[in-house]
């Protein structure tokens, strides 16, 4: 607006100035031109009149008229009209002044002459002159008036249009102001409505007391998590959390205290889980929790155990008193217990109801799940005890040279000798060890135990062979793993020669760059490394060449497929050739038949391991069967063959 205003002001000012200047100059100029012309023609007319008057005299005195000064004067002065302000002069044809009349006019002077005739003959001329001063004065007055008028015009032309424009602009800005005001009111109204809508939305989705999601929002989120879980193929758990004796607290301490407790519970849950999106308050003393990603059933059990335990121990402060609150939980798993959020929620409710009725701390909707959880927890306890009671044992499976059938090394395989049930296969407890983190301790124990056996054999003068120990993912990822190995082998200078680490291909490939560094560090300790289960982990050939390993173990599945058709054989052949070209030793796992053995020998596989030669055996049997002097060993070999 100010820019436009200035522009308009400038234009109007210029136009006004132009018109004003025109008026200022035109007025005196116009006056001058008109007055001058008028004056000039007046003088000319007077000259003509005087000349005509003189003609009469000349006619009567053609030869001496020029001497009749008195008569000339009389004519000039009064004939036919008296002189006004002008002066008149009469000249003869030679230009000599004959007579003059009137006062000499003040300069500047305007002269006009007219010829005097004696019939057709020019006898002289009359010259009339008058002062231009009157015209000058008139022009000056006109100029003054012009300036006045021009000034007035300028003021009028500049002031009035600008005033009108300004009035219009003011009206406009007033309207603008009104509009702006209306706009603000409207925005305020919209904001109110938005707030109301937000409030309504909030109330529709959140619990006012705790700020947690309500049932509606919770179910929406659960539905989202379910889609994501279905996409990635993992499980999802939904828990309903019921505070015990809440009604008593509410009744005895009053509702405000009950509300305060609910707030504290919500805060506790949020604080301990770290993500409020996973929680909801369903009604009175019911909370819901979703665990979006359940990889193992045991995780659920452990979480429940821990959470319920911690919750019970947490001191809630109400009215200066400390309360400890127990809770019951109903759980449902997706996809096992429902394909949609509503069903899952209902089933969790059913589980909760059942738990309350039976007095259980928590219940899963399906009994089997409850049972599995129970078993898992029991197993976990038992495994802890097994570690303490040294119930774990190492069995050794020999690896033999395909070229000459001689023992080359052994793989240590962990077994749990449960005093109640006997030997438990590793598939039943290794996952639990990994889930609980017991694998660290058990793994460390296995390493120590293998070294111990090796050193013992060695000490006993037996032909001690290198023992391969499997490394679990948790162990490899642990930052202290290399240090742990160093400690284990530090017991004896010969210890490194007795140890080989088997690491699965898929584990190495999880973080191949980091693992290459780790493996190199391990090798510098004198420990050799084998890639276990080769062919299942999608190795990058580019990395394979760089891996600091010594041995490649072909997964048993390839060995099995090898005899099924030419493709399987070709695969194994390729793996062997690849390994050899990388200067790696090749061990075939799970060799169970003579045919497999023959084929592997044909393909120049270095060693084999499997039931064809021997199943994993306790160390004392391994010792007597494979490390003892030759006569015994032959027998044992035979025994192994029959048992596989």
């Amino acid at each position, binding site marked *: 607006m100010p820019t436009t205003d200035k522009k308009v002001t400038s234009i109007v000012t210029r136009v006004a100035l132009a018109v004003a200047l025109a008026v200022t100059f035109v007025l005196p100029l116009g006056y001058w031109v008109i007055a001058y012309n008028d004056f000039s023609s007046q003088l000319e007319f007077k000259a003509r009149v005087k000349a005509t008057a003189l003609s009469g005299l000349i006619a009567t005195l053609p030869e001496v008229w020029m*001497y009749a000064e*008195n008569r000339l*004067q009389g004519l000039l002065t009064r004939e036919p009209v008296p002189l006004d302000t002008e002066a008149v002069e009469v000249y003869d044809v030679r230009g000599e002044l004959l007579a003059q009349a009137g006062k000499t006019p003040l300069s500047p002077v305007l002269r006009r002459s007219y010829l005097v005739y004696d019939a057709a003959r020019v006898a002289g001329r009359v010259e009339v002159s008058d002062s231009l001063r009157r015209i000058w004065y008139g022009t000056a007055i006109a100029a003054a008036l012009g300036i006045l008028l021009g000034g007035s015009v300028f003021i009028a032309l500049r002031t009035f249009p600008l005033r009108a424009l300004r009035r219009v602009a003011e009206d406009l800005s007033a309207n603008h102001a009104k509009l702006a005001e209306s706009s603000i009111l409207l925005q305020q109204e919209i904001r109110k409505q938005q707030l109301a809508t937000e409030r309504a939305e909030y109330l529709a989705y959140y619990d006012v007391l705790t700020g947690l999601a309500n049932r509606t929002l919770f179910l929406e989120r659960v539905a989202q998590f379910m889609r994501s879980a279905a996409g990635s193929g993992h499980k999802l758990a939904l828990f309903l959390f019921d505070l015990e004796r809440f009604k008593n607290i509410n009744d005895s301490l009053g509702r405000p205290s009950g509300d305060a407790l609910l707030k504290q519970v919500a805060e506790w849950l949020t604080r301990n889980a770290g993500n409020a999106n996973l929680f909801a308050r369903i009604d009175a003393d019911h909370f819901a929790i979703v665990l979006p990603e359940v990889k193992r059933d045991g995780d659920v059990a452990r979480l429940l155990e821990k959470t319920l335990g911690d919750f019970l121990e947490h001191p809630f402060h109400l009215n200066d008193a400390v309360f400890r609150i127990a809770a019951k939980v109903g759980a449902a798993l997706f996809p096992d217990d429902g394909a949609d959020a509503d069903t899952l929620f209902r089933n969790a409710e059913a589980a909760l109801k059942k738990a309350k009725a039976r007095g259980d701390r928590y219940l899963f909707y399906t009994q089997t799940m409850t049972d599995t959880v129970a078993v898992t927890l029991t197993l976990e306890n038992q495994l802890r005890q097994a570690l303490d009671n040294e119930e774990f044992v190492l069995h050794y499976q020999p690896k033999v040279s395909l070229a000459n059938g001689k023992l080359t090394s052994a793989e240590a395989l962990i077994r749990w000798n449960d005093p109640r049930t006997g030997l438990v296969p590793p598939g039943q407890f290794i996952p639990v060890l990994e889930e609980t983190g017991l694998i660290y301790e058990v793994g460390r124990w296995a390493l120590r135990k293998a070294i111990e056996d090796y050193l013992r054999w060695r000490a006993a003068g037996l032909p001690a062979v290198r023992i391969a120990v499997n490394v679990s993912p948790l162990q490899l990822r642990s930052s202290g793993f290399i240090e742990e190995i160093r400690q284990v082998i530090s017991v004896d200078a010969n210890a490194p020669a007795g140890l080989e680490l088997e690491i699965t291909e898929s584990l190495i490939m999880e973080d191949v760059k980091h693992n290459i560094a780790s493996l190199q560090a391990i090798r510098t300790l004198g420990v050799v490394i084998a890639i276990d289960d080769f062919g299942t982990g999608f190795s990058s050939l580019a990395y394979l060449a760089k891996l600091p390993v010594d041995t490649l173990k072909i997964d048993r599945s390839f060995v099995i497929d090898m005899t099924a058709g030419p493709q399987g054989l070709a695969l194994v052949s390729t793996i062997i050739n690849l390994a050899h070209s990388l200067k790696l030793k090749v061990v075939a796992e799970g060799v169970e038949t003579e045919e497999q053995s023959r084929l592997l020998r044909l393909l120049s596989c270095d060693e084999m391991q499997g039931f064809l030669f021997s199943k994993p055996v306790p160390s004392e049997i391994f010792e007597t069967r494979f490390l003892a002097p030759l006569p015994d060993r032959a027998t044992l070999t035979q025994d192994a063959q029959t048992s596989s």
Partner: protein
Amino acid sequence: MRNQMAIVFYCSRLLAFAIASTAFASEAAAAEEIKIGGTGNALGTMRLLGAAFAKQNPGVNVTVLPSLGTSGAVKAIPKGAIDIGVAARQLTEEERKLGTISLEYARSPLVFAVSTRTQVTALTLDQIADIYSGKMTNWPDGSQIRPVLRQVGDDTTQQIRHMSPALDQAVSAAEQRPGMPFATTDQEAADKTESIPGAMGVATLSLINSENRPLRALTLDGVEPTVGNAASGKYPHAKRFFLIAGAAPSAAVRRFIAFMQSPAGREILIRSGNWIP
């Protein structure tokens, strides 16, 4: 009047006869011309003299020009534009230096005149002043008084201004009055005084008499403007007439001058309302 004219005519024939009888004997009869011009008041008399002279001198053509005024005559003489000039005043020193000679030959009462049809015979100077100033606008019979004015520098105007201070002022006032009859020559003034009803002008007795004008010279302040009254000084206003000529006037001119001073000439002058000082 006719008797007067007849007497003049007779006398002039006698004079002419007397002069011619002596002049013809010595002078050649070659045609000569005398051009006379000047103040209007004297021109009528000059024509009478010229006519009388011409009768005596048949070989001389005497032309009396219409009025040139005194100044015209004074200017024309040195240029040789006229042979004899008549002036109503004496020459100035400068005019004399040009070689012009002058000779006062007659005087005539200066008069205020009205048409003979106007029933007025006498006025006082004060009345005349009132007439010029516009205070007195009507004759006793109720008719409008119309004073005839002359140009400012005219010698007659100058002369009446000197008659009284009141008249001086009155003339100045009259010059500013619109619608006043105006005349540039003595003859024109006489014409207008004659022809304009109720007009009053200034003239000389010689003009009225010599030209036989139907004008009445008014008695002023109770004194009749006769030649006798004027010559005696009773009537104090008169015009003096001077005859002027170039330094070497022609024989005809000298003769004419001589004729004017002859008894015949003098008689014409006196008869025409002049007296010879």
